[in-house]
């Protein structure tokens, strides 16, 4: 069958959504609406426009936070990757941050910066930054030695080696670090809305839970997961298209 992968994907979607529908009809819990009810709620929210104003609100800290993390994170990562001194000083901080449950900082951020946008942007930043920094630094450090030697033997200056060899060679890994950073940023943005103050999509989730409008609650959660997954998927495809063959062309293949 030529469309076997597509067919199986559809089949697996039907199985999961079907199970959701059946579980909702039994129902397994008073708080478990059917798939169809949830989708109806989703369409209603979209038609009313509530969904779009909510997303405008939710995406603000996410976009700001990711932009700040990207700018700072890549710069810092390049620096750490290029200088042993900088690596010694900064890398441990980000290695600990990478392993640590940084979400625990949220109550502190709220005390320091209040419950406004600043705190939320901070939450996105602390979630997104470590992976961006560490990926960038690792990519720079792992530039193939023979490429750098090639540059030197053909008389490249240090600046040319960085601009023409190290950065292009590192860019696929930097890009995937960005993608992982955005993925963590999504977690942070939603966490901020659920924990700090309910705004945007977090507001729809919290509000519909408090009035027991479970279909709307599930619809909002479904939509944010869908948005994150689709967006990250598109980024991954872009990554593959942009850097096609970039990791090949060495002797190893």
């Amino acid at each position, binding site marked *: 069958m030529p469309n076997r992968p597509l067919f199986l994907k559809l089949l697996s979607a039907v199985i999961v959504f079907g199970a959701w529908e059946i579980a909702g009809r039994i129902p397994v819990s008073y708080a478990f609406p059917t798939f169809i009810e949830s989708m109806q709620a989703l369409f209603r929210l979209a038609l009313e426009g509530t969904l779009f104003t909510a997303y405008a609100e939710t995406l603000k800290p996410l976009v700001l936070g990711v932009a700040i993390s990207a700018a700072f994170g890549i710069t810092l990562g390049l620096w750490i990757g290029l200088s042993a001194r900088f690596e010694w000083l900064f890398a441990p901080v980000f290695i600990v941050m990478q392993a640590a449950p940084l979400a625990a900082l949220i109550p502190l951020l709220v005390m320091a910066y209040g419950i406004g946008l600043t705190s939320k942007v901070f939450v996105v930043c602390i979630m997104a930054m470590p992976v961006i920094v560490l990926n960038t630094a690792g990519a720079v450090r792992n530039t*193939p030695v023979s*490429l750098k*030697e090639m540059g030197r*033997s053909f008389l490249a200056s240090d600046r040319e080696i960085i601009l023409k060899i190290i950065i292009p060679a590192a860019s696929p890994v930097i890009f995937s670090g960005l993608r992982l950073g955005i993925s963590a940023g999504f977690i942070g943005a939603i966490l901020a809305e659920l924990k700090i103050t309910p705004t945007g999509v977090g507001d729809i989730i919290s509000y519909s839970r408090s009035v027991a409008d479970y279909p709307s609650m599930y619809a909002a959660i479904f939509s944010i997961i869908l948005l994150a997954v689709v967006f990250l998927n598109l980024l991954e495809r872009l990554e593959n298209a942009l850097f096609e*063959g970039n990791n090949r062309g060495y*002797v190893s*293949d």
Partner: protein
Amino acid sequence: MSQTDAATAPSSGPAPDSAVSVRNVSKNYGPVEALKNLSLEFPRGELTSLLGPSGCGKTTLLKIIAGLLQPSAGEIVIDGNTVTAPGPDRAFVFQDFALLPWASVIRNVAFGLELRGVARSEREAIAEKYIANVGLSGFENSYPHQLSGGMRQRVGLARALSVDAQVLLLDEPFSAVDEQNRRKFQEDLLELVRNENKTFIFVTHSIEEAVYVSDQIAILLPRPSRVSEIIRPSGFRNKGIENIRRDPEYLDIVDEIWASLRSYAE
């Protein structure tokens, strides 16, 4: 086996003037002696092979000549000048090709010229000439991952030729290339040595390859690394490339080298 010093090494045939001289070079990595007091002359316009078992320091020596590594003691003299860094007089061909995977063939070949600040149209014209020379016409806009291993190394060779350096340094250039392509390469290399009037320094671990392509073979032995012997095959060079491999002198030299290296095989 004779352990003669390089300076008094036996050589058959007259040695022309040297393009590159390695004088009393040592290289230590901490307590490990990679090279110890090594001296060697590389005659101008000829191909010299550095041949030896793995770990004998032949690639280290090549990278010191290239200026990529600093010797712990001793010096490298090229045309009367001591060199300590890479320079326009030398070009390197890498074992793993070291092509930029994100750049097309023509940009890869022109990369050395790009780094020297040659204008785009000019460097691409030069690159195109050398791409044609190594037989890759039509692949100018391909990318390294679209080429076979042999073709990639031709790109690496074209890049080294296009900067018009007097000395070409080749670090096991054919070791990652399949056997048929390697033979073709060896024939092309002989052609290059005859036509280009450059000095070639060629690192290999293949005895047959060294004897086939070299005007002079320096045999390096490990622990501590030293030049044990210098051999100058001369008899079969003008009998045509297709006859080399059955020439008695070729076979004798291969046997002789194997006899002195066999105790180093693991």
